[in-house]
């Protein structure tokens, strides 16, 4: 059992691709936490999706041992996600640490999200250990990037370590620096148990596995514990550490990080940020916890086959066990039948959830166009939160239509400032300020409607800056705007799932694009199909998909009947995978096409 003086808890703040997973792998290898034989790249990236996409949303926690000056230290790495969608996850991971490695690519330099997360760490009183990664790359520019780190995050140039996670250079020096610079965990080992729940996952056999950081006291097997928020008591069945697999131990004491199970069957009883204490001898005050994450983006998820509705509910419930940051409520659409309106932290979060549902749960889903949460002040003085275009009340009842505005920082090459300014202007952005990190790099700040941001801004930023621009934003406030609901009519029938809320000035352009895309995606039918975009009863754009005029094979004799029957049945089977809107079958691709950005 290590004394708190020989424990360090830290996380890694890094931008996507700056080498976080590779560095973590090196920590495991160079401290012999795993052998070369067991090694596989991005070992701590639990989800297949993460390994496949090569990006890390959040790594598994891991406990490693490192010896410095003859003393053995227990180091716990608790990761933070690097993407703009997951700011909330960052804050809860940081609360379990005393230090953070600020990992920056020696060529690409500081990125917007890195800055935001570094400030979050500083606000949480974490000690920053700045590291330049990829210093052995021929394109590395360590001096310039170090200067950026000084300007952007306020670190001292002499504190910046240099490493190459790929070749393993400078890795142990980073661990030495953590021991030297990061304070050991505070807290009284003799005090009543007080542990922070910083994550959880559901295990079919063990129930909820609760990830904890012990702040005070200690926890043992067989101890009776209390989850303070729900005031529920449980008996500890198992305790352990992540090394990196779950390795059982007898006790976790002050400063240590690990997991416990207590046969908690219902994940709703376990709240991230909650405090675990001793049931008999409880601590007086709970830890402050976290602010509840705010869903920024909403969209509908519908099973292609309506009979899979209950399966979808079950899958969503399961996913929520391990991801409390998304929410879902049942909704009904004329066109799509029964489904759920889901709230996500952002577009990436939405995409990941969708992919996991389709892959892990083998569900065919229709995703409706994403939207932000709008507000409507009605004539009667009531304020309605609009999570779905369906919630928009009749125009006559609207006193004020409001949309969320974010304060957004773009960190980008200075030469792209003009491009970003045009982009922001087109999207109703309000300029705030520009700061130069160096003559080549700047942070430019705008206030922009969130709806414009989620629509296509990230892709546009990446394309105009050739991948060098990054962005980060936070919700500022709701402001009134001239918003309208743009409806799509297919064969005279409004497809509620295709409705979007847009600014009036862009409605016509959006409407035209939308139905042009739809036209390409909907198969020809036996009759002409009219596609229309409308605001209220006013049609602003129209396209026609002409009907099939000739679709008949001539022969139908004895043996042909069997063959034809199979063909017909197969054709019908294929169509069943589509959604029936009135007389028209619409594929999932057609729905997705509505979301793609303009060219």
């Amino acid at each position, binding site marked *: 059992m290590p004394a708190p003086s020989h424990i360090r808890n830290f996380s890694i703040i890094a931008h996507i691709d700056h080498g976080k997973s590779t560095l973590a792998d090196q920590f495991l290898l160079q401290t012999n936490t795993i052998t070369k034989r067991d090694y596989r790249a991005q070992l701590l990236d639990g989800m297949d999706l993460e390994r496949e996409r090569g990006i890390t949303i959040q790594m598994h926690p891991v406990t490693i041992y490192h010896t410095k000056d003859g003393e053995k230290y227990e180091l716990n790495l608790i990761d933070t996600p690097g993407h703009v969608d997951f700011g909330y996850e960052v804050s809860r991971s940081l609360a379990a640490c005393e230090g953070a490695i600020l990992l920056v690519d020696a060529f690409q330099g500081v990125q917007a999200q890195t800055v935001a997360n570094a400030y979050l760490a500083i606000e949480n009183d974490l000690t920053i250990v700045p590291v330049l990664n990829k210093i052995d790359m021929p394109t590395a520019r360590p001096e310039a990037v170090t200067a950026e780190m000084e300007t952007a995050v306020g670190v001292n140039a002499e504190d910046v370590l240099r490493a190459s996670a790929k070749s393993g250079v400078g890795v142990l020096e980073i661990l030495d620096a953590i021991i030297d610079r990061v304070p050991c965990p505070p807290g009284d080992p003799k005090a009543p148990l007080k542990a922070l729940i910083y994550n959880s996952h559901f295990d079919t056999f063990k129930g909820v596995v609760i990830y904890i950081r012990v702040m005070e006291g200690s926890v043992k097997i067989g101890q009776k514990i209390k989850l303070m928020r729900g005031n529920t008591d449980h008996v500890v069945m198992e305790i352990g550490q992540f090394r990196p697999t779950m390795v059982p131990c007898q006790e976790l004491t002050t400063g240590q990080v690990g997991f416990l199970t207590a046969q908690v069957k219902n994940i709703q009883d376990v709240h991230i940020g909650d405090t675990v204490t001793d049931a008999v001898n409880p601590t007086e005050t709970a830890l402050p916890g976290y602010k509840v994450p705010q869903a920024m983006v909403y969209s509908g998820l519908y099973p292609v086959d309506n009979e899979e509705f209950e399966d979808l509910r079950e899958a969503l419930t399961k996913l929520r066990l391990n991801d409390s940051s998304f929410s879902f409520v049942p909704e009904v659409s004329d066109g799509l039948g029964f489904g759920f309106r889901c709230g996500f932290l952002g577009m990436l979060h939405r995409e990941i959830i969708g992919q996991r549902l389709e892959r892990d749960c083998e569900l065919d889903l229709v995703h409706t166009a994403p939207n932000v949460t709008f507000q409507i002040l009605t004539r009667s003085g009531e304020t309605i939160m609009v999570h779905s275009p369906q919630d928009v009340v009749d125009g006559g009842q609207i006193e004020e239509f409001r949309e969320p505005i974010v304060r957004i920082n773009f960190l980008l090459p200075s030469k792209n400032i003009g491009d970003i300014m045009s982009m922001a202007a087109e999207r109703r952005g309000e300029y705030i300020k520009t700061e130069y990190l160096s003559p080549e790099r700047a942070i430019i700040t705008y206030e922009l409607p969130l709806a414009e941001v989620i629509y296509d801004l990230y892709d546009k930023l990446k394309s105009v800056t050739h991948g060098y621009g990054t962005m980060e934003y936070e919700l500022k406030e709701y402001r009134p705007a001239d918003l309208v609901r743009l409806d799509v009519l297919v064969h005279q029938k409004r497809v509620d799932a295709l409705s979007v809320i847009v600014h009036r000035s862009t409605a016509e352009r959006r409407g035209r694009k939308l139905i042009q895309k739809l036209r390409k995606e909907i198969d020809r039918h036996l009759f002409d199909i009219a596609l229309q975009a409308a605001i209220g009863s006013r049609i602003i754009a129209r396209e026609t998909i002409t009907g099939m005029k000739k679709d008949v*094979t001539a022969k139908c004799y004895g043996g042909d009947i069997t063959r034809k029957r199979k*063909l017909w049945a197969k054709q019908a*089977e294929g169509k069943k995978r589509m959604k029936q809107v009135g007389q028209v079958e619409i594929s999932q691709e057609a729905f997705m096409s509505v979301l793609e950005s303009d060219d």
Partner: protein
Amino acid sequence: MANTPSPSTDQLTPDRSAPWLEPRGLYVHVPFCAHHCGYCDFAVTVGQDHLIETYLEALALEIDRTEVTTPVDTIFIGGGTPTLLSPDQLGRLAGMIRRHFPTRPNLEFSIESTPESITADKVAVLADHGLNRFSLGVQSFQGHTLRVLERQHSGDQVTPAVEIIRRRVPNFSMDFIFGAPGQTITDWEHDLKRAIALGSSHISTYGLTYEKGTPLWKQRESGDVIALGETDELALYTMSHELLGSAGFEHYEISNFAKPDHRCQHNEKYWANEAYHGVGVGAVRYVGGRREHNKRNTKDYIRVVFSGESPTFQQEELSPFERARETLAVQLRRSDGVSRQAFLHQTGHSLKSIVQHRLAPMIEAGLVTDENECVSLTFAGKCVADGLVSKVVWG
């Protein structure tokens, strides 16, 4: 299960002697051809004329083993090119059929043939055996179309063949193919007008289909021939409908036109999903709700039959509901359409239990009519019958 109908008033007990269970038609397949036409995917045998005698022996065996429970009223000898056989062989073939299968009054007895294989002797021996209908594979009168289709005759051979046939068998039909690469609407108009002028009582017009694996399909895949577009095909099909209609032909099935009282009664059994016997290589029979396919290779067929085994290589027996669906699908090809009463009687399922609410939009779109308890396709509906049938019957 939304598709399973309730067993109450929708279901009736099947009648074992009903025409959809007990065959009243006979199909006999003769696979031999002088040439394998580029579009054809039927069971045909080319350059194997030395097998004809053995084949007839095998056929005699299969016919002898066929159980007959009721007389037939239609016989159809198809191919291949049945009239490739010599007069003597045709006589023996017709003889073995007539000896084994008792017939009803007003028997329709047809044979398929080609202009170049017709002789007066052949027509005579068939007519002597009661054959009373010829189906002549003309396909086109245009040289360039016949060449694309790899037919072995010229347009000029048709009239002499018709004259030979008509001396003994006044009732004849002509088969045409439309939509061949390079075919124009004027070509097609000439073809149809000549067929009418020659006194054909029945005309079948088959839209060219590129059957997978056929030489023509391969040519299209490699870009050597270019298929007609949808608009052109539609124009040709519309031309048949209008021109033949005004000449007194009834468009009684998707690909078939007949003068009054001259429909092909044998084929009508297929489109009613009624039972029929089938003998010969590649033949299909549908007896007691069970559909069986014979082997498609002539030598295999002969070998198996001689060894005393059944030449069947595939068989299926559908559930009553699937059979009802199939019945609806084929019956929709007829201009007479589907009588709700007769359909319930034949299948044990109501039409409504199959189509549910899928008819109304088709009626609204002008593709289907539903009048006097009878559902049928309009001309526009016939043009898109495949997609329509799939949608209406299978949902």
